[in-house]
């Protein structure tokens, strides 16, 4: 079973090596597309196996748990790997048109695949220190991608991104050290029971360290400032993969550790998370309302949407976790897609600053349709995927008499529509200020195909999740059940129930 778990990590690594060796030739981009496609196949097989056999675990180097490094895939890990592969395929195709030869020569494709390897590794590991290592792999690759090209804005955004993420890394490392000192293990399944014997007050302190560390990665209030400072500066395919995946690794890590390990004092930790969720939603959406650049608006919306996922974790009822898992998957698809669309708007209309573009609805109606799908899904319109995600979370909040937080969630949805209509009105409806007609046909046939196929694919996925939510919600329910009752996870890793 080990090879099946290791493959999703090994494939992007090998792809990265090959892409690095061929970075001088145009071959690199096709290697990247091929590598992502193979990853997609591997992750589908992994998903099928997990659905058939339940949680699977593999011990690397045949060291028995909890001494060796364990790779585990439960439903949540498997779906996150799958969605990562889908985004990787979409973005690697899009990059054919978006990434110029200069960036390719600097090793864009190698860094991109290294980033994917880090993300997948973080989703699939069952060991806290190994999670730290994957975070670093992801981080160093994202540093490279962010400043690739070296425009002054990128350097400026990069400094802030690097500075805050390094601080979070150190918090994480300190937390790991303290946790090991208290329990003598870093295997997550082993920790789930080992923490019961530890000093509960000290454990809460460690929990808060982890909360801050993952909170920076997930870009929650008040730790999100690096995100809107940097996400609008790199190439569009880079922003799309960052927007889709990076913050979600933080959310995943929170979801994993605060259901499996730190569930001893939920009255304290999860109340903090609830406040954080509320503020994250509101501050993010208000920040977006104040912006006038497409990518900046979308960046602030990432922050606001993260709040919803944290809300699901904070409520910690079965339905709330279902909502969080559903939201996580839906959000990755929608958000990556919106950034890809912003890239097309930049190419044909000459910018993302809303006051400088326009006329996209009249002269590029196809793009307008493709924009409407993820934009309205983000805001939570039925029958798109975002509606069900928000519905589940609001229902979960109402079930526990969380009137205020449910009201905030609904109001933030409304404000999301406000900024989506702002983009719609200024970029799509109003005529272009320079009088030009931004046409999709101004792109070469190759670029047009490479940009629109991934966008259309992700939009179709959004519609499919929205119109046929039943299997997806059932899946999220099964996955939430595994999170809330980690017995199967622990047995899969350790062999028997301790």
């Amino acid at each position, binding site marked *: 079973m080990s090879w099946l778990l290791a493959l999703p990590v090994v494939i992007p690594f090998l792809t990265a090596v090959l892409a690095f060796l061929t970075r001088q030739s145009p071959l690199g981009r096709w290697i990247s597309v091929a590598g992502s496609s193979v990853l997609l196949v591997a992750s589908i097989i992994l998903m099928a196996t997990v659905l058939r056999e339940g949680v699977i675990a593999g011990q690397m180097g045949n060291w028995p748990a909890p001494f060796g490094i364990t790779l585990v895939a439960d439903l949540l890990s498997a779906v996150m790997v799958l969605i990562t592969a889908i985004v990787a395929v979409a973005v690697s195709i899009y990059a054919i048109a978006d990434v110029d030869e200069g960036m390719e020569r600097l090793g864009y494709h190698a860094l991109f695949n290294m980033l994917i390897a880090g993300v997948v590794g973080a989703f699939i590991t069952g060991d806290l*220190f190994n999670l730290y290592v994957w975070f670093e792999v992801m981080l160093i690759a994202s540093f490279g991608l962010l*400043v690739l090209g070296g425009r002054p804005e990128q350097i400026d955004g990069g*400094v802030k991104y690097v500075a805050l993420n390094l601080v979070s890394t150190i918090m994480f*490392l*300190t937390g790991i050290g303290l946790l090991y000192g208290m329990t003598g293990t870093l295997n997550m399944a082993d920790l789930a029971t080992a923490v019961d014997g530890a000093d509960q007050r000290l454990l809460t302190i460690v929990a808060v360290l982890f909360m801050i560390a993952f909170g920076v990665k997930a870009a929650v209030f008040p730790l999100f400032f690096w995100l809107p400072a940097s996400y*609008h500066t790199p190439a569009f395919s880079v922003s799309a993969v960052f927007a889709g995946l990076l913050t979600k690794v933080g959310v995943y890590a929170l979801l994993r550790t605060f259901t499996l390990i730190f569930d001893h004092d939920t009255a304290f930790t999860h109340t903090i998370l609830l406040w954080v969720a509320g503020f994250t939603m509101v501050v993010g959406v208000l920040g977006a309302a104040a912006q006038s650049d497409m990518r900046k608006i979308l960046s602030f919306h990432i922050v606001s949407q993260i709040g919803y996922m944290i809300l699901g974790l904070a409520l910690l009822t079965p339905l709330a976790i279902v909502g969080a898992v559903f939201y996580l998957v839906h959000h990755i698809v929608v958000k990556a897609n919106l950034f890809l669309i912003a890239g097309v708007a930049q190419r044909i209309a000459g910018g993302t600053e809303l006051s400088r573009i326009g006329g996209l609805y009249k002269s590029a109606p196809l793009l307008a349709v493709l924009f409407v799908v993820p934009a309205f899904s983000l805001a939570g319109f039925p029958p798109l995927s975002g509606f069900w995600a928000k519905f589940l979370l609001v229902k979960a909040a109402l079930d526990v008499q969380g009137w205020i937080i449910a009201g905030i969630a609904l109001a933030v949805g409304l404000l999301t529509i406000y900024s989506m209509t702002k983009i719609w009105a200024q970029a799509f409806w109003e005529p272009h200020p320079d009088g030009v007609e931004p046409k999709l046909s101004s792109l070469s046939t190759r670029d047009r195909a490479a940009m629109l196929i991934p966008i259309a694919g992700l939009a179709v996925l959004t519609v499919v999740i929205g119109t046929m939510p039943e299997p997806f919600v059932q899946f999220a329910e099964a996955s939430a059940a595994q999170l809330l009752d980690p017995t199967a996870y622990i047995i899969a890793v350790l062999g028997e129930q301790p």
Partner: protein
Amino acid sequence: MEFLFAITIGVLVAAAVYLMLSNHLLRFIFGLVLISNAANLTIFVAGRLTDGAPPLIPEGADAPALAANALPQALVLTAIVIGFGLFAFAIVLVFRAWTTLNSLTPDDMRLAEPEEAHK
């Protein structure tokens, strides 16, 4: 011995926070290096500190009653290597910021987020 380490870690963190709060990027990086070493020391202490216990024992012999756990030391080594890479990148980035933006004062770095024009 733990007490000495605790004091050292505390001093390192205090100095690091002081440096990181100053309005200069290079000092921020220095602070980051200090605080990462404080984190490494924390892990090191978490593995127990023992005096004079042999790291290797002859085959068949019993382990000394009180020996340090070797795993945190391995973790620290990994963390040092990773930290080295990250700081190398961070320092080059700061140097690049100096050459392209002509400033290392974070308050001046508003290219990516220009200040709103007052209306």
